[in-house]
């Protein structure tokens, strides 16, 4: 008797007991279809939630690396252009020089050419990408090379005067210049003049750049140099050659002495240009690594995105089916409730 | 001569019928009176000496009989002090002067002034006081009977003396170091399990006993009992006075108690409580108290009385405890129908009825008491009415005889003009 009894309360509430839960599930499923993600990710993933949090951070850090790589890339490209520019202007000077001009006119033109090339060289070396001076190394705030007229020239003048006993300004002491022997000039070039382009004179007179080039973290594991410091040998050699041609007063030198200057300048210039090419090749390698890293990181980003989706995403088709099923169940539950409530012995008694 | 005789006879007949009608009247009037016993009139003829040729009418003599022995139907009420006797026997009641009578009318209620149980007619129910032990009655008299006074049962307290405590002690519990056993009453005391139980001292005050069980070695436990009132607030230990009782319990391999099965706890201000702990076990499960009962009760007022079918009156106290206070006896006589009914549905013994014997309900052939019921009158209206019609016819017949006799006398008188 007792076992077969069902209380009116549990009979009437039976279809309703699951209703709240079903409605809750319906709401969750609807949300899941709309967002494509689990309604309560933490609850579903439980101890794997930390993994998706980590993956999202990984994606964030990949994104920021890709972004900052574009900055590094533009810096490399601009450095390339600048070096190319310098190479171009010096190339033409070199061509003129190779012909070993000896007429007064030709020499005056060459000197002026060298003067212009020096100015252009300094200004190109002082190129800035935004706030960063490309060739300043880590000391990127300051232009790396001093303007020739506002520093190096005075040092050169003083050195010429001291070595050869010239009057000031030394370039206009025609007699004194003409009296310089090739041997003296060679000696000057090897010692006093060379010292001006070596440390410590170079960094006090010419350059305020830092030796360390700019470094960029291009991938989680790679750091590459993305600039050339003005303290490199290329800059020094080119500056050396251009200064000699521009400001030794070559018009007034004895032809033999001038030949020494020309020869030495030509070889220095060649060395400088070669080094420039090496520097550009180095940057090229950096750029290649950067591109490779970018590609790799974009791939990694896709994979990370897929993994996040694997963790968090839901199958909308499956969810839609679940919603349909739930709707049917809920409707059935409603109609059952209504039916059961109508079911009473009193309607028959 | 015989004419006059005729008149006398018919008058006696009418008298007899009117007596009968009187009993019927009484019966009908009391047909709803609890404990009323039907009266009936029986006739016997009184004949004159007659010769072969002459008949002298005699007269009829009526005698009254009572159907006292006849059980009335029980009607149920909601008062527990309404009593009925199912079977033989009478309640013993006293009238206000202290005279004992018998009755079947059990509509007793508590009298406000005296606290006694008094029935509708004002008679006090008598019984034996058994609060101090068994009833000291006599078989053939009313000795030692006292009024059943419900108010006298008030405020009763009893000190605890016995109890049962059964629990399982967890066999896998950790062993408590000897220096930390509760019996040491050290501040660092540790224990495996604790229970507390309410007992009552002599004045009925509640004393809460803290019972500590501590495993002191494998299969060996120590039980220590303290008065909770002595506990240090917050930490319990140390108590301000030593343990009331300490006992070592040992268990066999099956977890059954092998040491003494009782524990005696002197309750402060009360009696020694002997607690039966023989059913304690030590098994590999949690500490589980199974039984914890101690007798005794706090002082409390009587909320109700319960009267059993054997006549024992139990006072029911506020706290649900019961105490037997009185026992209601039943009295019987050899010939109940010969008892003399008196006003108030009481009966007194007569020579014919024989002397009373007093016994207890359900014993020695006496009936049982039914609480919450009244014995209705055993009058049956239908019978009474039919009797009445018969009596009426009979009376009319007698009056016709008288009328005829009278007319005959008239005729006789008219002979002489």
């Amino acid at each position, binding site marked *: 008797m*007792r076992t077969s009894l*069902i*209380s009116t*309360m*549990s009979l009437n509430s*039976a279809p309703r*007991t699951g209703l709240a839960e079903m409605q809750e599930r319906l709401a969750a499923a609807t949300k899941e279809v709309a967002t494509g993600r689990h309604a309560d990710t*933490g*609850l*579903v993933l439980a*101890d794997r*939630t*930390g*993994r998706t949090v*980590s993956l*999202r*951070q990984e994606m*964030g850090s990949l994104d920021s690396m890709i972004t*900052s790589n574009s900055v*590094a890339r533009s810096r490399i490209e601009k450095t390339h252009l600048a070096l190319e520019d310098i190479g171009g202007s010096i190339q033409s000077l070199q061509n003129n020089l190779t012909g070993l001009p000896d007429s007064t006119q030709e020499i005056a033109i060459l000197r002026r050419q060298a003067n212009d090339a020096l100015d252009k060289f300094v200004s190109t070396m002082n190129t800035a990408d935004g706030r*960063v001076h490309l060739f300043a*190394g*880590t*000391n990127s705030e300051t232009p790396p090379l001093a303007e020739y007229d506002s520093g190096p020239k005075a040092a050169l003048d003083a050195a010429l005067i001291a070595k050869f006993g010239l009057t000031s300004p030394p370039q206009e002491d025609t007699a004194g210049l003409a009296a310089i022997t090739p041997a003296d000039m060679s000696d000057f070039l090897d010692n006093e003049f060379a010292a001006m382009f070596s440390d410590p004179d170079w960094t006090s007179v010419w350059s305020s750049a830092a030796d360390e080039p*700019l*470094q960029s*973290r291009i991938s*989680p594991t790679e750091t590459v140099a993305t600039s050339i410091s003005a303290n490199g040998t290329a800059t020094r050699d080119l500056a050396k050659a251009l200064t000699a041609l521009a400001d030794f007063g070559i018009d007034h030198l004895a032809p033999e002495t001038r030949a020494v200057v020309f020869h030495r300048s030509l070889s220095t210039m060649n060395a400088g240009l070669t080094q420039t090419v090496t520097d550009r090749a180095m940057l090229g390698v950096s750029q290649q690594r950067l591109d490779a890293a970018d590609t790799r990181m974009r791939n990694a980003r896709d994979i990370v995105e897929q993994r996040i989706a694997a963790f*968090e995403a839901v199958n909308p088709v499956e969810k839609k089916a679940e919603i349909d099923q739930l709707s049917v169940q809920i409707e059935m539950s409603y109609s059952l409730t209504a039916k059961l409530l109508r079911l*009473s*012995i*009193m309607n028959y008694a | 001569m015989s004419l006059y005789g005729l008149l006398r006879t018919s008058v006696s007949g009418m008298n007899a019928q009117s007596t009968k009608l009187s009993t019927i009247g009484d019966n009908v009037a009391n047909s709803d009176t609890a404990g009323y016993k039907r009266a009936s009139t029986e006739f016997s003829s009184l004949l004159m000496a007659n010769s072969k040729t002459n008949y002298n009418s005699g007269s009829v003599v009526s005698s009254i009989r009572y159907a006292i022995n006849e*059980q009335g*139907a*029980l009607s*149920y009420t909601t008062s527990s002090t309404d009593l009925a006797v199912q079977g033989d026997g009478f309640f013993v009641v006293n009238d206000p002067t202290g005279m004992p009578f018998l009755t079947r009318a059990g509509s007793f209620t508590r009298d406000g002034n005296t606290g006694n149980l008094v029935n509708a007619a004002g008679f006090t129910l008598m019984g034996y006081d058994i609060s101090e032990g068994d009833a000291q009655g006599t078989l053939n008299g009313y000795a030692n009977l006292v009024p059943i006074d419900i108010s006298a049962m008030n405020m009763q307290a009893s000190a605890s003396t016995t109890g049962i405590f059964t*629990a399982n002690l967890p066999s896998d519990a950790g062993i408590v170091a000897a220096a930390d056993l509760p019996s040491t009453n050290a501040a660092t005391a540790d224990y*495996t399990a*604790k*229970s*507390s*139980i*309410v007992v009552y001292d002599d004045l009925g005050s*509640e004393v809460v006993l*803290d019972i500590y069980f501590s495993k002191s070695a494998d299969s060996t436990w120590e039980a220590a009992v303290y008065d909770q009132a002595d*506990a240090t607030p917050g930490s319990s230990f140390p108590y301000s006075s030593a343990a009331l009782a300490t006992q070592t319990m040992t268990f066999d391999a099956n977890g059954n108690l092998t040491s003494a099965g009782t524990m005696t706890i002197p309750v402060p201000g009360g009696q020694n409580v002997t607690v039966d702990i023989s059913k304690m076990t030590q098994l590999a499960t*949690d*500490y*589980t108290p199974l*039984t*914890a009962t101690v007798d005794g009760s706090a002082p409390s007022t009587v*909320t*109700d009385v*319960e009267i059993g079918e054997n006549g024992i009156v139990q006072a029911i106290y*506020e706290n*649900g405890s019961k105490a037997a206070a009185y026992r209601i006896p039943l009295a019987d006589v050899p010939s109940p129908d010969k008892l003399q009914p008196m006003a108030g549905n009481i009966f007194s013994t007569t020579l014919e009825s024989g002397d009373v014997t007093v016994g207890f309900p359900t014993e020695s052939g006496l009936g049982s008491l039914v609480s919450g019921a009244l014995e*209705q009158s*055993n009058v*049956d209206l239908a019978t009474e*009415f039919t009797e009445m019609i018969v009596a009426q016819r009979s009376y009319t017949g007698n009056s016709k005889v008288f009328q005829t006799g009278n007319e005959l006398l008239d005729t006789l008188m008219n002979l002489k003009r």
Partner: protein
Amino acid sequence: MSLSVALNTARSSIQATSTQIATSGKNVAGADDPTYSRKIASKTTTADGSARLVSIGRATDVALYTRMLGATSATTGATARLEGIERLAETVGDPELETSPAAKIGALSSALLEYANTPDDPLFGQNVVTAASDLTRTMNAAAETVLTVRKDADADIAASVDRLNGLLGRFEEMNQAVVAGSGTGRDITQLMDQRDALLSQISEEIGISVVNRGQNNDLVLYTDSGVTLFETRARVVAFTPASILTAGMTGNAVTIDGVPVTGSNASMPLQSGRLVGLTEVRDEVAMTYQRQLDEMARGLVTAFAEADQTAGGAPDLPGLFTFPSATGVPGVVTANLSVVLQVNPAVDPAQGGAVARLRDGINGGVYTYNTGGGASFSVRLRGLVDGLAGNQSFDAGTGLSPVSSLQEFAAGSVSWIEALRAGATRSADYETALLSRASEALSNATGVNLDEEYAIQLQLEQSFGASSRLISVIDDLFKTLLGIVR
């Protein structure tokens, strides 16, 4: 005489039937009350053949009721635990919203990387400081949430204990009434229903075992750990809420009848009920989470600490992340660190600092990294990026991997709390389902079926009608009889 007897019998039958109908009426009225149990009026035949109502009983099922009580305790315990854990898990949020400390650490790491690649640009430096402030705010807020959860749990325990004492007091009254009522044989079914309702309320707070002392339906209550909760009198349940609950500080224990029943020092620890759930939240889950946050804070201070660059042996000093009156970098778990963690004012422009100091060395002096003063000095910043990703040692009491990177540790904390939440949700769902099954079974065993009551009433109606008819027949008979008497 037989007519009168017949009348009497009919009358008693009517009386009994009326009471039965009244009982059935009560049943109908109580059909929708979950605490109501079906009342049964049993009738017997007396010696003279009339019917008499002997007693009113009620449908009970001790086994089902005990199961229901146990399920109630388990459910409230699991629910209280779930509620606490859910509030803690809110500090983590949906992974997509990136509101967790772990996500903020990731954001800081990204900002730091960008700054390392563009160290000359103070805008990127500002981004780092903003991300760091965001992180400290998140950590502070999470730590505050943990403290609040613990404080609330403590207050809830106090409220639960108050409720328990109140319920026990009422249970005492009700038990006395039942005991007294059983003694006098009154109808105590309604009282017992009420007492049972109190029992189920008590079982919400605490797991109980109920022992019937057999006489007068006197009940004795024990906790599920065996501590006497009620025996003739209610025992005192005592608890002192903590006025302040700082990190690492365990709350007070609840004592019942002088026995501590919660906390690590409980000699007879409770096993279920709201009190258990709340205590677990207060003393275990929240405390572990607090420890994790403190370790995260310590990890941050350590990862950004600045070392003596001159090899002069000066102690490390906090860098980007610091705390009030810091004199060094703490080497072990430090309570409350997550509450007071802050961004070093020296790098926060909003507090008069300069972001570039992050690149150059915040503490100055021997702690200067950028000795050359270059604006694009990135060594220190790259070092910080690596330091943030590098392995650190964490306290083993956090329940997480003791050696891992800060990022992994923070992610591990997310996993830990979400795993707890998932587990707690599952067990709460499970216990709730069990409770609903137990309640349904109990309702079926002791509840009212209206149809059945209606059928009973029809039956009673017939019985009543038959008795009434009998009375009217007897009345007719008497009328006939009286008609004869003229």
